[in-house]
């Protein structure tokens, strides 16, 4: 019994020593020096890091990361619901980008002396602010400011291009069970998709839904009667674009968009990522909504 107690005390002491070593090491680190080993668990942020020239500092990304192509060679350390804390720590990062809902992970990292950068999707302004914040955090302030203003300039150009044109009442769909009208997810009146649609010269039929997504029933879609249906689909790794898909929309022929053949399908993961490519995505929306403006 006594031997066990002694062992226990020794173990507790050891843990304590290791912990204090760890914190002392963390204190040695200059907290605001440019990080050299960044782990990003958020694909949109990974894109921003590479776009502001911090790419070489990134040592690992999330399992959902596919862009830019350089990330394919980097280790994948889980994502939103399954971050691999052990592997993250083993990579000895000096900055870890976590999603806002991963607060436990963020705390855990900070306890062990790692800097965590927490981020949540918001509107376009959030994206631009995040780009600038990342510039400060990673030592690429000038590049980040330049990127943020170039995105803004490009968005302004799209807005100018479609200015004065009638804004079609649009339903922006980002998810749907292929071949059917079930499990439809459309952009609500909040968030970057809604803002991109607005800049592209479309009027969101779900502008009154104060959430990022709406799950309209068939009745709701018939009632809202959009003039344009814009379906954006991120072509994921696993899911190939389905071969000739039965046209589910033809059943709702009273919807003006269906009647006038204004159901547009755009594919590409950039279309739904609130990162540096959102200006390109907004332009793609605008081309679909106002083809005449881009002739």
């Amino acid at each position: 019994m006594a031997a066990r107690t002694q062992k226990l005390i020794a173990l507790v002491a050891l843990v304590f020593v290791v912990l204090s070593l760890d914190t002392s090491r963390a204190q040695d680190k200059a907290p605001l020096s440019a990080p050299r080993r960044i782990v990003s668990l958020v694909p949109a942020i990974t894109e921003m890091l590479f776009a502001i020239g911090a790419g070489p500092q990134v040592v690992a990304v999330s399992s959902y990361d596919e862009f830019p192509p350089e990330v394919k060679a980097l280790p994948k350390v889980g994502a939103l619901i399954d971050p691999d804390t052990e592997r993250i720590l083993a990579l000895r990062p000096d900055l870890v980008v976590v999603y806002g809902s991963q607060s436990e992970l963020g705390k855990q990292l900070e306890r062990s002396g790692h800097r965590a950068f927490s981020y949540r999707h918001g509107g376009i302004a959030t994206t631009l602010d995040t780009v600038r914040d990342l510039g400060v955090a990673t030592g690429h302030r000038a590049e980040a400011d330049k990127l943020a203003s170039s995105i803004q300039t490009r968005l302004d150009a799209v807005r100018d291009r479609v200015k004065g044109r009638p804004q079609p009442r649009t339903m922006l769909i980002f998810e749907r069970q292929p071949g059917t009208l079930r499990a439809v997810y459309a952009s609500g009146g909040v968030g970057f998709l809604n803002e991109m649609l607005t800049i592209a010269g479309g009027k969101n039929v779900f502008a009154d839904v104060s959430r990022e997504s709406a799950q309209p029933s068939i009745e709701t879609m018939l009632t809202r009667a959009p003039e344009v249906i814009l379906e954006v689909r991120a072509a994921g790794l696993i899911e190939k674009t389905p071969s000739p898909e039965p046209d589910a929309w033809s059943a709702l022929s009273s919807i003006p968009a269906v009647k006038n053949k204004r159901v547009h399908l755009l594919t590409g993961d950039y279309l739904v990522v609130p990162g540096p490519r959102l200006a390109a995505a907004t332009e793609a929306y605008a081309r679909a909504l106002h083809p005449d403006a881009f002739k």
Partner: protein
Amino acid sequence: MISLDSADESSAPRSVRRASIRGRLISTVIGFGTLAVVTCVLAPLVGSTSISLTRALDPSIPFDQNVDAQIFFVARLPRVLAGALVGSALAAAGVVFQAMLRNPLATPFTLGVSAGASLGAMLVIIFGGAFALGPLSAVPAASLVGAGAATAVVYWLATRHGHAISTSVLLLAGVTLNSFLSALIMFVQYLADFAQVYRAARWIMGDLDIGSYDPLIASLPLVVVAFGLFALLPSSLNLLSVGKDAAAARGVDVPRAQRLAFFSASLATAAAVSLAGPIGFVGIVVPHLVRLLVGVDHRIVLPASALFGAAFLVACDLLARTLLSPVEIPVGIVTAMIGGPFFLWLLVRKS
């Protein structure tokens, strides 16, 4: 509320009971049938939008310009019919499983049929593209296959030691298979991208918004066959729910009756789940409520549950699409919100 014949049958002499069963069946079917028909007629008239029925039924307006007609015939009617079909199939399957397993807690989902169906659906939602088997689109087709496979596995396990189904093995094997398949479902979801997880989650919540008559046409024959088999069951279910030996002593071919009950209820469940996803609580709340109203005779309980199940699910879906309009509540959540507390109340009241 409809008035029901609730005479205390235990006090009546046996001959009187036998003679009155036909009369009770007729009055029960008329009562519950009226409820089901009224619900199904009223439900398509109500929704998040108000439509004009005269305009919807006006043949002089071309269909593709008639929003009211499209809301009535494309959005609401298939949905109400699907609710009636799924509700009656699940409620009747619940009655059969509860009697056959002699377990009041059995549901249509207890034996892994729905987990098999869900796994099939998940695999297509997450890995599959769009294909179709006749009127069946990819997801329902795959969930039927999954349900069939799960049914076959459970049956094989429960009959390994002889020709008769061992109810205890059936229950254990079914519950275990259910958990095992649920783990596989989680694993498949874990492998999925964000977008597919949305769709998968939506399917699991249950959804009657089918938007076309094709899925109904595909499921109807399966439900009709299952109900045809149910019609052969009630007398043997009455005896089976007392006990196997008692049933055998009264001349019931127990293995045959069990097989019939197991496969017909599994078929009804598979058809329902492939059409609308796993909508919970219908298969347990409706049978218990009906027993409370009409007693325990399966000759009455089974048809009454089928009719009341239809009315119940159609009514729940009506709430689902109007309560928070224009936002919808998944119907599986509504059935659980109503069914859960109600069932608990039933339990407390009884004890």
